[in-house]
């Protein structure tokens, strides 16, 4: 279980997340919704361990009882945590295959990796050239997200955060990516989707929905909360703050 308690996070002098408490259960799919600038990407980067994000003294962040705060991102990744980036930067001269060869050094031999990558690319509908070209360099939105999804499948994390895995992709690709992730993820993995897409939410059928606004959790609920929020917009959420915020519960 991922447990977040009283989490307050800042980048430089700017406090982005304020006193967030959330639990994410194994095997459950959660959706984090919120307007732009509400702190959704910061929350996911905080869980992954981006080094420029500073947590307050009393912030708690544990994964299966392990305190994540002192661990660098690569150590968190080794514990099974994965983050799919919203807009990953291109890395000249490094292909996804080369990257995974290093990442999976002890888990998969290069020949097996080579084969597996091609099977996954075919399944998700991505041309083979994207496996050997510089990663994300000149890729379209859809191609980037497919590359992120393929990495998620191969790294087989037990906690996966997808930061806008649907952005920049057409509706067919969203469906394809959602089905791909569904097929390749173990049942007991914890999944967190950050998204604006009603279509993706329909496809993944979240167990819980969290609404983030101005760096605070303003509402929690089930699938229906997502439907309602998308229909009515975030401006109505503020009124729910008092009712939902007083509840202590798991997302």
């Amino acid at each position, binding site marked *: 279980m991922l447990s977040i308690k009283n989490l307050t996070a800042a980048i430089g002098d700017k406090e982005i997340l304020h006193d967030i408490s959330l639990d994410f259960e194994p095997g459950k799919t959660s959706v984090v919704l919120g307007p732009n600038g509400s702190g959704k990407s910061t929350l996911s*980067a905080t869980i992954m361990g981006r*080094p420029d994000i500073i947590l307050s003294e009393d912030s708690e962040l544990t994964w299966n009882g392990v305190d994540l705060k002192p661990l660098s*991102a*690569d150590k968190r990744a080794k514990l099974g945590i994965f983050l799919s980036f919203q807009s990953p930067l291109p890395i000249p001269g*490094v292909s996804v295959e*080369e*990257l995974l060869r290093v990442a999976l050094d002890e888990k998969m031999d290069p020949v097996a990796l080579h084969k597996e990558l091609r099977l996954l690319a075919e399944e998700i509908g991505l041309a083979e050239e994207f496996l050997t070209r510089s990663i994300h360099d000149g890729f379209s939105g859809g191609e980037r997200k497919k590359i992120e999804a393929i990495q998620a499948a191969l790294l087989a994390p037990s906690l996966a955060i997808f930061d806008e895995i649907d952005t920049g992709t057409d509706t067919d690709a969203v469906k394809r990516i959602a089905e791909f992730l569904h097929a390749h993820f173990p049942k007991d993995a914890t999944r967190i989707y950050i998204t604006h897409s009603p279509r993706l939410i329909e496809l993944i059928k979240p167990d819980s929905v969290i609404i983030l606004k101005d760096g605070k959790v303003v509402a929690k609920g089930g699938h229906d909360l997502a439907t309602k929020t998308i229909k009515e917009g975030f401006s109505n959420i503020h009124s729910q703050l008092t009712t939902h915020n007083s509840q202590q519960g798991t997302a």
Partner: protein
Amino acid sequence: MDFPDSDNYKYGFSVPERTVKGTGRGLSASIIRQISEIKNEPEWMLDFRLKSYDLFKTSSQPKWGPDLSALDYDSITYYKKSTEQAVKSWDDLPPEIRETYDRIGVPEAERDFLAGVSAQYESEVVYESVQKELTKQGVIFCDMDTAVKKYPDIVREYFGTLVPPGDNFSSALNSAAWSGGSFVHIPKGVKVTLPLQAYFRINSEAFGQFERTLIIAEEGSSVHYLEGCTAPIYRTDSLHSAVVEIFVKKGARVRYTTVQNWSGNIYNLVTKRAKAEEDAVMEWVDCNLGSKVTMKYPAVILAGRGARGEMLSLSLAGKGQHQDTGARMIHLAPDTHSRIVSKSISKDGGRSSFRGDIRVAKYATGCSSSSVCDALILDKDSRSDTYPSLSSHASDARLAHEATVEKIGEEKLFYLASRGLSSQEAGGLLVNGFIEPVVKEVPMEYSLELNRLINLEMEGSVG
């Protein structure tokens, strides 16, 4: 004293010195006569040397570029011969020299992928061998000293014409004291598919190596020439000053690849120039990893219509190193094209400089040139400079220059960390990715070595 590179430098060993003939320290007209006499040279070559020495005495070091003030010409030994003659079998070398080349891996590379090998130890070539098939086709690959005696007509026609002794202080010094190096002559239409390799090794302390290479590729021929170099680590400095002249005739193609990995006590001052005639292609692939100071700006003179010149440059400047490199493309004929790609890495206080010099003559219409110079700086103590110079007297020349400087971005490191890569693994991957456009042009046997060296150098540099 802390040696540059000493932790990671695999070739820093030395074996006991062996000298069958040699000169004392320093250079003088009488030492030049002595060298010429040991070599039993024709009179014209002795004259060439003595005239060059006069030019050297009146020359001065450049006022720009790296600091050469610690270079003491009088403390250096200019000539040392370690074996009586060049042999054709590795087994015929003295054991310590054989062992040196085994440790560097030259005989192994020869078995695997080379068409010919020339191994220079101190001043003279001690081993040379070329595939019989090539000899049958008329290919000549021998040491320069042999060529002076065996092929004097060809040598006299070309030697010192592209890089005249008075070109600069280092070419004057080389022309006076030269010894060893390669002579390559590829007959018309002959395409040599596997590379020819020259390997340069300095074993002695406070030594000067002055090899001289002349490559002539006749019409429609092609050849890939590879050179590598290493030396032991000593407290005193040594000097390597080479001159390379390449003639690429009509429709011929020459690629010259250097993997320079001198130890951190070597001043490496090299003049390299090629002349490309009609529709000829000249490619320099220049990788500079070692040395204390390198000054090297290979040139292509595009002298015939449709000629192409290319420079792919890679340099790594670590602690105590200054890599001052560059490329020159001189467009003298119409429809000539050139391209420069430079990748430099500076770390641990190292400094890399890249000087690109593109010139287009007045009547050379329809020319184009593009330069891309990317620098990666790994810490705040290190430095990188790019000095582009573009000048065109032709109205329609298309010249493009682009330079970038980057630091290893936190965002990219975080992305790789999220995949489980340690900061060292991530740094190594990013740096290898950065240099990939150049490394992919180097034969695989060498590119693996380059990647390995870069990974070693990256240890502890990132994160």
